[in-house]
């Protein structure tokens, strides 16, 4: 077909991830309102805080796309900068998740406390694990760039990293709406 094989494989992978997260979101939604005990979502979810996380991840997607544009035109100085910014924004998101989880546990919502806890932590935890892999991936690219091994010739690597990162952002958009806003 004359398309880049890695890009094609990656879009297929992202397609399969739709089924992965679709199944997890289904489980969350099917068990919504069926917890035998509290805490319940409306008691514990913090919308302002999570809005900030959402904003953070959206900005990280912007940083990612600016990183790719920079690398594609050979501006490695900006490329390195935006890659690092993306990774840092990802770390901020993870920090927020970590804080949120600790806070919830402190408030009495553990993994096994009730169905809300189980479905919430598994869904957002899987997403968080994906963000973690993304941050490691981005930092790896950043280090590669520092070593002068990244440039317009291998911009496809950055593009694919971007696809992964944006997908992770897009999954969060769905989670934010379905878990936090629609209670």
């Amino acid at each position: 077909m004359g398309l880049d094989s890695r890009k094609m494989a990656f879009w297929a992978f992202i397609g399969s991830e739709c089924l992965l997260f679709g199944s997890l979101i289904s489980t969350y939604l099917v068990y919504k309102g069926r917890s035998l005990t509290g805490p319940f979502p409306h008691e514990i979810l913090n919308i302002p805080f999570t809005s900030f996380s959402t904003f953070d991840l959206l900005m990280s997607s912007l940083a990612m796309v600016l990183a790719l544009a920079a690398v594609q035109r050979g501006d490695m100085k900006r490329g390195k900068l935006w890659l690092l910014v993306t990774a840092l924004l990802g770390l901020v998101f993870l920090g927020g998740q970590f804080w949120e989880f600790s806070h919830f546990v402190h408030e009495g919502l553990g993994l096994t406390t009730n169905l809300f806890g189980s479905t919430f932590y598994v869904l957002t935890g899987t997403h968080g694990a994906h963000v973690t892999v993304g941050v490691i991936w981005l930092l790896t690219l950043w280090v590669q760039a520092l070593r002068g091994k990244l440039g317009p010739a291998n911009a496809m690597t950055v593009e694919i990293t971007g696809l992964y990162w944006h997908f992770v952002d897009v999954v969060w958009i769905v989670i934010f709406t379905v878990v936090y806003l629609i209670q």
Partner: protein
Amino acid sequence: MSEQAHATTGTYLRVAAILVMITLIEVGIFYVPTFQTVLVPVLLFLSAVKFTLVVMFYMHLKFDNRFFAFLFGGPLLLGVAVVVSLLFIFYGAVRLRAGS
């Protein structure tokens, strides 16, 4: 690369601004009691818009070969169908049996 046109930095910034605005609207709707009845469809619609913007512009699907859209779109629709059908099976039946 097989893109025909290319989005500019300006486009990316504009998309970012729209994403932030939509998020603010979503949070706003969440807090305003008047909108409670339409909360779910409006939120679903707004998040779908955000989803589409990120996929079309940041993931470049708008400008890339249409095949990538098929590779992603097919499984995406399937994923949505999985969610909808499970919801219907677990809750639709309940609503119907309740005689609505």
